[in-house]
């Protein structure tokens, strides 16, 4: 079952009723203010955000005025095109010339960093790559144990220190041991932190600095893990983490629920940060590459 089907599969009543409305929105009638307003509703309900939603609808309004779009089908196509073009497709697999490929995962608490890392490690080892996971969340109770279980499932090795130790040191050791064991990939799990905590943001900066020192050019990917359930605050998260350490992409998790994660549209629009991965379940294989077309379809369709 593809991602799209899976998403459709788990749809709630709410989404179905929304879809029904979008389907009926413009069919057999000309574009009017009411229809555009309903479209704005759909976008807001998907957490795209009131500003982005009204800018998209205003854009359509202009087009309609100029006669560039005439009816329902045009509108649907126009908006889907616009959104998927904006989101674009971007792959995480930009392997550097020199091994190891170093990936850092970060984000606020409870977004699914550890789970995402487990799934990502599985995917790499499925491809025959040697993976080392760095247990740099030394703060949360049992975070290391949790990661160990995922590492086992993913057939990856783990580098860990004691709980409470310096996360930067863990990251450094992981890269050193990856070089020694000629591993292909290092994935660094970091503690969840709110972007408003100055000291914790300083800590993550330090981790990144140490990683840069351990291997010039690393980290090759800095993934911000974002929970699809999150509303407008995800934009703040992306801004603050990006300012602190420079994000290369978003991993959007928990898309198997009823939340649609529309905030990534605003994140891409404002910060230019692409979604690279999506999480669609608790299973180890429930991680996919982001496909903007499918995502936009899922935002609108049932």
């Amino acid at each position, binding site marked *: 079952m593809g991602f799209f089907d899976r998403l459709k599969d788990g749809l*709630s009543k709410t989404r179905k009723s929304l879809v029904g409305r979008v389907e009926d929105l413009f069919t057999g009638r000309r574009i009017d203010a009411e229809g555009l307003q309903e479209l704005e509703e759909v976008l807001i309900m998907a957490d795209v955000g009131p500003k982005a939603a009204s800018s998209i609808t205003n854009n359509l309004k202009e087009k309609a005025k100029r006669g560039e779009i005439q009816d329902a089908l045009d509108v649907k196509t126009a908006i889907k095109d616009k959104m998927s073009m904006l989101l674009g497709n971007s792959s995480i697999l930009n392997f550097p010339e020199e091994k190891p490929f170093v990936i850092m995962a970060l984000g*606020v608490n*409870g977004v699914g960093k550890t789970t995402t890392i487990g799934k990502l490690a599985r995917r790499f080892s499925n491809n025959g790559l040697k993976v080392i996971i760095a247990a740099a969340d030394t703060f949360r109770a049992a975070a290391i144990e949790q990661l160990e279980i995922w590492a086992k499932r993913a057939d990856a090795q783990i580098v860990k220190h004691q709980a409470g130790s310096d996360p930067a040191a863990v990251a450094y050791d992981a890269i050193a041991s990856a070089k020694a064991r000629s591993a292909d990939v290092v994935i660094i799990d970091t503690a969840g932190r709110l972007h408003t*905590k100055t000291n914790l943001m300083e800590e993550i900066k330090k981790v990144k600095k140490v990683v840069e020192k351990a291997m010039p050019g690393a980290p090759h990917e800095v993934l911000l893990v974002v929970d699809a359930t999150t509303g407008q605050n995800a934009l703040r998260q992306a801004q603050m983490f990006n300012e602190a350490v420079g994000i290369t992409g978003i991993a959007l998790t*928990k898309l198997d629920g009823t939340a649609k994660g529309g905030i990534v549209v605003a994140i891409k629009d404002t910060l230019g940060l692409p979604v690279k991965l999506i999480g669609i379940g608790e299973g180890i294989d429930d991680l996919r590459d982001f496909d903007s077309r499918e995502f936009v379809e899922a935002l609108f369709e049932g």
Partner: protein
Amino acid sequence: MFEALSEKLDSILKKLKGRGLLKEEDVAGALKEIRMALLEADVNFKVVKDFTENIRQRAVGKDILESLTPGQQVVKIVYDELCSLMGGGQSRIQLSANPPTVIMLIGLQGSGKTTTAAKLAKGFKKDGRRPLLVAADTQRPAAIEQLKTLGNQLDIPVYATQEKDDPVKVCEGALQKARLEGRDIVILDTAGRLHIDDALMAELERVKEKTSPKEVLLVADAMTGQDAVNISQSFNQRIGIDGVILTKMDGDARGGAALSMAAVTGKPIKFIGVGEKLDLLEPFYPDRMASRILGMGDILSLVEKAQENINAEQAMTLQKKINEESFGFDDLKEQIKHLRKMGPLEGILSMIPGMNRLKGLDIDEREFVKVEAIIDSMTRHERKNYAIINGSRRRRIAQGSGTTVTDVNRLIKQYVGMKKMLKQFKQGKGLKLPKLFPFR
């Protein structure tokens, strides 16, 4: 973004001056702004729709109070309505007449159930009760370990079995143990699940049936977006909840989810989680949440904190000094001391409207230590007459305080600027200070 909603509304309603009635068209313009504010704060679209309609009905034709601008008047109506929708007052946890009191925590993955369970247990222990934590999350890797570690830290027993065990059996076993050992509070930490996962929701139904909890609390992330409505509605309809605990409130999310959830379930928010440390669980105050959703900052908390630290007499003396323009370095030091007593400055600033949105706001608390050292190194005379502090005095002060002449220069410059500001203040020349009390 929303520096102060009332200011924005004032510009819309500026045509209305003095006493009058709020007219339909004035209110319509204001409601548009309020709608945006609420949507930006993640209040659910449908909730916003009902809410603004309600406000429209209440606002149109209403007298504008003499003391308020029309904008403030509308904001006040919105604020009051928000407060009442979120339950008006505080709501506490109910205890069973027949102990043990069972408290069941449910919610999505990553909402903070395990941390909250430990925080609750700690609170009960502090009240002299004998809580038992139950690791009913047999699903997530190391969830049992996590609760055990937290229990250890708090010296509170944790009932746990094996991973993959049936949570219903775990909870039943825990209840038995609690009865045997005279534990009066049992906190069930269930696995995170999606509200649309039929099998796992059925499991929760069974846990509830077998343990008859006094309180079923939905643990929800304050950063939740539009989906808050679906989530809370599903959990409430299927399991039946008695209240909500809103976590991660120490971030800068405006927390509109609180309103959405209160509106669709009619259930109160009982606690908020404000940090990763285990004592950071606080009662929920609807009025503070209303300010936060409207982007007006947590004024009440700030006022409370200020009142705790500055007594009326001190305030009078300060006022006198400002009036006499004799505000010296000693007074500056005193003010800094009060400010610092209120807690980390970062936290205080985040409560002031507008400040929480300041980009790259970075306050180094160590700067204050420097300032105090510099002032301490001044003679009594210098502290009262900054004008006499010449080059050689500056060098001496810098050396004495372990700072540089640049630091000393900067402080004097800031002090002079401040004095100027206070003078303007006294003369009532429209000083642009953040509006702290929108309803006054």
